[in-house]
Structure formats: C-alpha cells, structure tokens
C-alpha cells in the first residue's frame, strides 16, 4: 500500500478535502480515540495536566484529553501544534477546547523550558522522516523536534508518541533521535506482527522512569540504554546485556552501518507481571 508520507508534504496532503474526510470518518475517529486512550494509559497522569498535542490535526486526539473525567485525573488542558491549516480549520469548526499553533514540529517546539506535564502525539511523527530539500534532512528535523520536546517538558514528564514507521530503519531513526535528545525511551507494540500493529514510543525526562511506565506490559522494548550507562558507569553494563547491545547498535548506526533493528527479543525479554 502506498503511504501518503512518501508522496506529498503533510501540509499539502492534509488539504481541505482530505482534512474534512479524515475528520468526519467514524472509522478514523474511533481508531484515533482508541490510540489516544492508550497513550493516556501509558502517561498515567494523576491530576489535571498541561499537555502538548504534537500534530494535533483537527483535534480528534485532543478532545479525548479534554474529556477525561475528574475521577480519572482529568480534565486536561492541551495545546496543539499542526502544520496543516486545513486540519486546524476543522478543529475550529468543531470548537475544540485546546489552543492551537500553526507550526512545523521539525522547526522545534517554541515553549519555555519545563512548560508541560506531558506530551502526546498520535499518528504524526513519521511525517518528520520525509523532508528532502537542500536545507533540511530528516535527521536534522528529528533532532530539532526531540531536543525541543525534551526541553519543553517538566522534569519527570513523559511523552507518548504513537507513529507509523515505514520500516525498521525508520523506526530506529526516530527512536535513536529521541534517545540522543536525552529521553529515556521504550517502544510498545500493540497487536504486533499484524496489519493493525500500533507502535508507541514512550519517553521520559529524567526522574520519570520509563521502565516503570511500560514494565509488566507485553511487547515492550526498553531502550533507555543511555541513561543507565550514565548512571552506573560502563563497568556495570554487562557485555551481551540489552544495554550493551543497544549501545553497540547506536555506535554502529552512528557510523552509518545498518544494524539489525531492535525487537522485543533484543538482549533479553522482560517478564510480564500479569
């Protein structure tokens, strides 16, 4: 199946017609709502929070954040960023509660340090891999985005980004960019090895433990090698351990080598708690 990401930049793909069709399709609304609920579950927010919605589109993800009940720690207040004015126009028409910016996340995240309790991104960040002009590269845009996101979150803050990687390279391109920005990172897969597989990149800013967020879950690949390494020093990093493998892999990737993508089987498997 051809991916829209391969053919057009996002602001052109999500034109008026596509934005309307996307937003009014009940099939899409259900899928986006389910994934947003899943992201919220992973964020595990205990109180009404200030959340950045990255690639907020017409607000299908955001309205779930506004709708979280009081006894479930909500409702949350969100700010969205999106590059498509047609998607934002749909959001205005639907009178969503969040504030929105017309902005390209590949240019950075224009908020002061420590602004947000958390961030979500539903079905958007794979678009960052499709920049090919003389002055921008996917690597450069991913770096801008993750560096900016990292700074905009408060310490202990978390981000959950559901995305559709084109292939294994793209998946590691994106997760490595997050790790380089300083995040503790894990990848969770729902319905792995099926056509409807959903990939969630779970990120935490120092203090919040990503292994806590995803421990006890199936199909989780914890990749916060960099943080462990720094904390404990290399001598504690056993050769052949997951952390060791991940470090070797990123070293090799940094040198431009193609390495086998990490899977839930990389290094060791986490036991599930239930």
């Amino acid at each position, binding site marked *: 199946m051809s991916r829209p990401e391969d053919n057009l930049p996002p602001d052109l793909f999500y034109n008026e017609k596509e934005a309307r069709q996307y937003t009014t399709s009940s099939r899409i609304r259900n899928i986006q709502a389910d994934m947003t609920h899943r992201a919220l579950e992973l964020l595990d927010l205990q*109180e009404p929070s200030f959340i950045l919605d990255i690639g907020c589109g017409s607000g299908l993800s955001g309205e779930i954040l506004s709708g979280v009940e009081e006894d479930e720690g909500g409702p949350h207040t969100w*700010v969205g960023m999106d590059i498509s004015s047609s998607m*934002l126009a749909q959001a205005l028409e639907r009178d969503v509660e969040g504030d929105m910016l017309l902005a390209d996340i590949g240019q950075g995240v224009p908020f002061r340090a420590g602004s947000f309790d958390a961030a979500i991104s539903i079905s958007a960040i794979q678009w960052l891999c499709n920049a090919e002009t003389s002055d921008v590269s996917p690597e450069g845009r991913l770096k801008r985005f993750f560096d900016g996101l990292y700074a905009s979150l*408060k310490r202990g803050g978390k981000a959950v980004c559901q995305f559709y990687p084109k292939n294994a390279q793209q998946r590691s391109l994106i997760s490595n960019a997050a790790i380089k920005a300083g995040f503790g990172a894990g990848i969770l897969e729902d319905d792995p090895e099926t056509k409807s597989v959903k990939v969630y990149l779970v990120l935490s800013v120092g203090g919040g433990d990503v292994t806590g967020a995803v421990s006890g879950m199936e199909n989780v690949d914890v990749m916060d090698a960099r943080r462990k390494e720094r904390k404990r020093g290399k001598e504690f990093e056993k050769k052949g351990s997951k952390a060791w493998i991940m470090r070797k892999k990123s070293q090799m990737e940094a040198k431009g080598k193609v390495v086998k993508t990490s899977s839930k089987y990389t290094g060791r498997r986490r036991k599930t708690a239930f």
Partner: protein
Amino acid sequence: MKLLTLNFLTCARKTCKSNAAAFPLHPKEAELEQVETDMNPLFIKNILPRLDWEAMKTLTTELGLPNLPAETPSDEELATDGEPSQTAKDLHTLLMETSIQSGKLVCGNCEHEYAVKEGIANFLLPSHMV
C-alpha cells in the same frame, strides 16, 4: 490563544531560544475574546507554580487588563472553606477564559511578528529564519 498559553510560548527562532528578551512575546493590535468555561480548580493549582508571574504582569499591562497582585498567589489563597476562592476564580478568568482572537505576537529580541488569526498563531518560519 489563551493567556495561559502565552505564558509559556517563546519565539521559535533558534537564535532567540536562550535570549531572555524572547519571552514573553508582546501582543500587538490584539483583539481579546472572553469565553466562559468550566472551572478546573485542580488544574489551576497544578499550573500556578509554573507560571512566570513577571511575564503575566507584563502581558496584562500590555493588553490593558486590570493590574495583577505583585506576587504569584499562594496555594492557600486558592480555596476558602474548601470552595474555590475569588483569587482562584480570577485566575481562571485570566488564564482560561481570556484569549487573543487576532493580532500579532512580537519577539522582543528579533522583532519577528507572529500573526494570530481566529485564535491560532502562525509559527511557521521561512527556512532562512529557522
């Protein structure tokens, strides 16, 4: 764009990131809108310590809104007898119900102007400015 959001928004240019003059952005020719919303006392309590009160005072002065108290209200001032206090209600009105509907936001460092239309600020930068 709510005043809440304006209290966190900075200039998007890289060269402005670490410059104190790039925050807060200064409203220009701003048209304000007041929309009633449900009060969320726990959110106000959560966000209060994160507000930059000096920036809040600058924004209200520049928008011609009533003067704010000199210091950030304290946590205890948010409730009286378990009910949201007048202070909490005022904060709710200021942060959550007051928004810029149209106008410009100007960076105090590079003087770039971000246009606001229908409450949405345009932060797209031409590539030479990124």
